[in-house]
């Protein structure tokens, strides 16, 4: 599975970012290959409107299966994600990426 985390910094050691569309970075972890890709979201952060959908599209282009985040996507982003059949987990906004991943594996994160 390809898992995306909304993060404050571009590293596995980072803390999670609660926001979805306006997260600074997205860390994509490919469970199969073990590879980590970082998407720099800061161009999208700067847009007045429509950050959520744009971010969601980037996730689609990266082939993400699961998104782990804090507050969850807004209404418009949800419309995009519905097209993608991505599974979203929320409530990890105050965790580190490692903690969030563990919580996901333990099944303790809330599905959106």
């Amino acid at each position, binding site marked *: 599975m390809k898992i995306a985390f909304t993060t404050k910094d571009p590293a596995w050691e980072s803390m999670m970012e*609660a*926001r979805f569309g*306006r997260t600074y970075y997205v860390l994509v972890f490919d469970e199969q290959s073990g590879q980590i890709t970082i998407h720099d979201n800061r161009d999208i952060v700067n847009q*007045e*409107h429509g950050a959520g959908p744009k971010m969601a599209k980037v996730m689609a282009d990266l082939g993400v299966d699961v998104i782990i985040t804090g*507050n969850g996507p807004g209404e418009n982003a949800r419309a995009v994600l519905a097209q993608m059949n991505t599974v979203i987990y929320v409530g990890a906004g105050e965790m580190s990426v490692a903690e969030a991943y563990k919580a996901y594996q333990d099944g303790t994160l809330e599905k959106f």
Partner: protein
Amino acid sequence: MKEIVVISGKGGTGKTSITAALASLAKESCVVVDCDVDAADMHLLLQPDFDHKEDFYSGVLAHIDPDTCRNCGRCAKVCRFDAIVLQNGRYVVDELSCEGCGYCEKVCRLNAISMNERLAGAWFASQTKYGSDMVHAKLGIGAENSGKLVAKVKKEGKAIALAKNKSLMIVDGSPGIGCPVVSSLSGANFALLVTEPTLSGLHDLKRVYEVVKKFRIKAGCIINKADLNPEVCAQIEAFLREESILHVKSIPYNKAFTQAMVEAKTITEYSNEPLKKLLEESFETIKNTLGV
């Protein structure tokens, strides 16, 4: 670090005075963020030093180059906002009406139109008279209040809070129910709703709570000027119970709110013991709910 956002829906309920009071109680342990960018007032009470200023750009504005333009009028025909007008026989952009859609730029065959970054306001990072950090802003007149400037001050506030290891971020939220409020609330751990026992206050409280509900943020309410109308006050209390909103405090009408403001003081500075106690208790209740 926990974030408290104070909103009201309706203006004039005492939101800013109460936010300033909480900030004065939190002293250096907090960062204060004034998200009421259309009509910012907190600085009148907290006296920030406006140490750092940055221009804020938002959206774009069309500009017609008079040397290249040959007045064909195609741009004026496509503009849905009546923003391209004839002035002294030449087509010019009315900046107050231009929405920055760029349609005119796309149809101009001579490339005479450019879309330029619009200077929409400014934001400031300051120290308040309490020694706490404050981030605030001023939106330009006629600017679109898209929530972007609100997002900017929140982001800068959060960065300072984390860098300086502050335990609290106290936010004076935007009024109304639109994008600026949504932007004020994003990332909040607690939404403090300030209302008054008037029909207007109750009406706007319900409307703004719908926004809070969508974000599933823990909410609490202070009923200010509570003794003004016991009947409406009871209606508000019933609404709070129905929606499981924490009733933080009821504050009876007190002239000190205004008197403190007139003297550019927060209520806690101004010596009114009963009122000060109510605010201190409110602050404790909120902190306990957050586990701070």
